[in-house]
């Protein structure tokens, strides 16, 4: 009998505790999500708005943000897709996930952002929030069967940056090629071209021109003007990227970096 009552006591205690924990959990859940956040990010509604008006040129925002880890605004990167070929402007940490999120495989509309076509990258300047996605640009599409060589165009310093980056992954590249993965031998062989203001790239789809802009203490920082062409050779769209641009007024003193 005594034993029986202690079991009842234990059960009652457990039940009370469970109810209490439940009540606390309810309190916590009730507070979230906060109203403003729910309004701010209605997934499936706000994600991937389509304002495009051309069938030839689609400009896809892969990262619209800053160094802040804002889930709606990843690190800066934009793809200009022309006649099925993407040209990537800047490669912040938004580049890889959002480029793939924009493909039909993950519910998006832009088939041309499939991994094997990601081979052309243009950097406005070498700040980390514009370049952190480069390891993925170099290696992830290659693992997913890209055979074309990744090409990076950017201001002086670009070649050093890519060279150091690929040295950091030398062992990985070796193992992928000669280990069990047997990844192809070409899709990692990078080319980095340092460009000065002026025309930096031209093919049948685009003509890309760099303009020096003022971005604080950087010696070289560019705006890019991208003219796209229809298959018949006439101009389709002119798209301009400011890059990071400052110096409307140079104070000269009291400059402070984060």
């Amino acid at each position, binding site marked *: 009998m005594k034993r029986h009552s202690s079991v009842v006591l234990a059960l009652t205690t457990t039940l009370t505790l469970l109810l209490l924990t439940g009540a606390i959990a309810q309190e916590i859940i009730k507070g979230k999500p906060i109203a403003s956040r729910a309004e701010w990010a209605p997934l499936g509604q706000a994600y991937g708005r389509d304002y*495009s008006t051309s069938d030839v040129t689609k400009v896809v925002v892969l990262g*619209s943000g800053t160094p802040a880890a804002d889930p709606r605004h990843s690190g800066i990167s934009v793809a200009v897709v022309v006649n099925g070929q993407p040209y990537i402007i800047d490669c912040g940490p938004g580049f890889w996930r959002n480029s793939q999120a924009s493909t039909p495989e993950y519910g998006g509309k832009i088939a041309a952002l499939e991994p094997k076509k990601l081979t052309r990258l243009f950097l406005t300047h070498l700040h980390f929030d514009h370049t952190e996605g480069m390891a993925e640009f170099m290696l992830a599409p290659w693992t997913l069967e890209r055979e074309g060589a990744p090409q990076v165009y950017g201001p002086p310093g670009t070649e050093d940056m890519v060279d150091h980056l690929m040295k950091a992954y030398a062992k990985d590249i070796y193992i992928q090629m000669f280990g069990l993965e047997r990844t192809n031998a070409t899709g990692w062989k990078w080319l980095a071209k340092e460009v000065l203001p002026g025309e930096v790239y031209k093919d049948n789809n685009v003509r890309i021109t760099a303009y020096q802009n003022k971005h604080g203490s950087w010696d070289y920082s560019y705006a890019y*003007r991208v003219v796209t062409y229809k298959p018949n050779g006439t101009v389709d769209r002119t798209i301009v990227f400011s890059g990071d641009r400052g110096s*409307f007024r140079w*104070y000269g003193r009291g400059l402070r970096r984060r």
Partner: protein
Amino acid sequence: MEEVYAGADILFHEAYSFDPKTNPYDAKAPVSVAYMNAFHTSTEQLAGVLKKVNPKVAVIYHYVTFTPANATDQERAVKEIKSFGYNGVVVQSQDADIF
């Protein structure tokens, strides 16, 4: 500088909102007005640029604000640019938007 923007169908431009005198979040931010001016473009400065070049569509990207995301309006930069007198088409971009 503005010649690079001339005749653009789509102009992607960075912008910031920063006023440490009136905004308590900006007052606590780890940067100065001098830094912001040297490195970036305010919504007021951008409105001035847009009035000169009149792109068909202006897209704001790399928008810097120190106000937390859950305490601000996702159209804030657009509203500011309009308040500075630019009446053209302006979109404040988010990831995966297509133009």
